[in-house]
């Protein structure tokens, strides 16, 4: 698909507003890369479109919002997690949770199915003594490397951690869905992005930890990339 200047002019407003996607957007961006005139037009419209965002009503987020962001940044410790050093940053605490489960013989690790990159699904079950209250499910690539992991722990609140580590430096957004036992309805729990192949979702979730059966990670196209099943409680 290619776009000429006349077609780009038709699309310019929607491009500036951010509502063009897929092949159409890719073709438009390709045209803009080599056309300073059209690029200037879109930039001028984008300045207006961007300023419109300031018209959105101001709404205070739920209590704890600021803390959650600071925890995700790793600049403050999570008050509800006591599995790592008391003053350790959140990121380290979360790594500690996953690492503790792994080092203890892949404690509580469940079945993981990797469907990433179209490669054959690899199903593995890891044995071990579950760490108290922590359940882990892992996804491996065909070389047996540790690529995606899900950890759930805690009751009030229940925390879900999904970490993705890829070696291809991918920058992308993924969504996470969870399934409870005997319920085929996916429960959307959040999204996360990878930067240079690495990304983590770590949040308190409204899930019943004891009946949580599996977690799926979907790419931007809605395709299931990783599917992990926790061991039964």
């Amino acid at each position, binding site marked *: 698909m290619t776009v000429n200047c006349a077609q780009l002019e038709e699309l310019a407003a*929607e491009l500036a507003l951010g509502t063009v996607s897929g092949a159409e957007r890719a073709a438009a961006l390709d045209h803009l890369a080599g056309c300073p005139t059209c690029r200037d037009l879109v930039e001028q419209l984008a300045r207006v479109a961007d*300023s*419109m965002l300031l018209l959105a*009503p101001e709404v205070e987020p739920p209590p704890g*919002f600021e803390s959650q962001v600071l925890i995700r940044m790793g600049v403050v410790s999570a008050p509800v997690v006591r599995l790592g050093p008391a003053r350790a940053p959140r990121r380290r605490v979360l790594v500690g949770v996953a690492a503790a489960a792994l080092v203890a013989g892949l404690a509580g690790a469940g079945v993981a199915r990797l469907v990433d990159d179209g490669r054959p699904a690899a199903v593995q079950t890891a044995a071990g003594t579950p760490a108290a209250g922590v359940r882990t499910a892992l996804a491996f690539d065909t070389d047996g490397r540790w690529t995606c992991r899900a950890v759930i722990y805690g009751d009030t609140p229940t925390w879900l951690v999904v970490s993705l580590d890829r070696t291809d430096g991918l920058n992308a957004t993924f969504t996470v869905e969870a399934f409870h036992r005997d319920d085929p309805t996916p429960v959307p729990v959040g999204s996360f992005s990878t930067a240079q192949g690495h990304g983590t979702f770590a949040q308190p979730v409204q899930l019943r930890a004891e009946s949580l059966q599996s977690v799926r990670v979907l790419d931007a196209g809605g395709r299931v990339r990783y599917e992990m099943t926790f061991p039964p409680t």
Partner: protein
Amino acid sequence: MSVASDDTLLASFALGDADAAAAFIRRYQGKVYGLARSMVGDADLAEDVAQEAFIRAWRNAQAYDSRRGSVHTWLLVITRNLAIDAMRLRRAQPVDPQVFSTLDLRTSAARGPEAAAETNAEMRDLRAALEDLPAEQRQALLLAGLCGRTAAEISEIESIPLGTAKTRIRTGLAKVRSTMARRGTDQ
């Protein structure tokens, strides 16, 4: 006690300074969450989007270019893009579009010294330009700009042909741009 400028606060935020990060989040969280909520509708998803916007800003603060706009606008553009991605992924039910037909274009507070100045000048012109638009163009433009609706979705919402929806968006934005440019040069 002086109030840190937006740029200064962003620089400290980027370095991971806890106090600066808290101040940065407090300064913008209402606008960021408000925009996310306006676009995706669902409160939980809006919170995810708003959190991710701050994380994205923190990780990419070096990409901010003050020549291209204020910190405030930059952060809201990040939020808008994340909200649009989230809506595509989850097919979330956005807020009732009719809310924007009654949006009070005169009351949008902003925080921070630069944001306040921006509101006083740029926002005044923007509101005036939007008020000058025919109602159907204003509605289409707000649906696209503040709800993240595509032309196809606006076509469905308004029960109009796709081409008409595209024309309303294109003409509306062009008029606003033209009006703002004229007001800017008139001053």
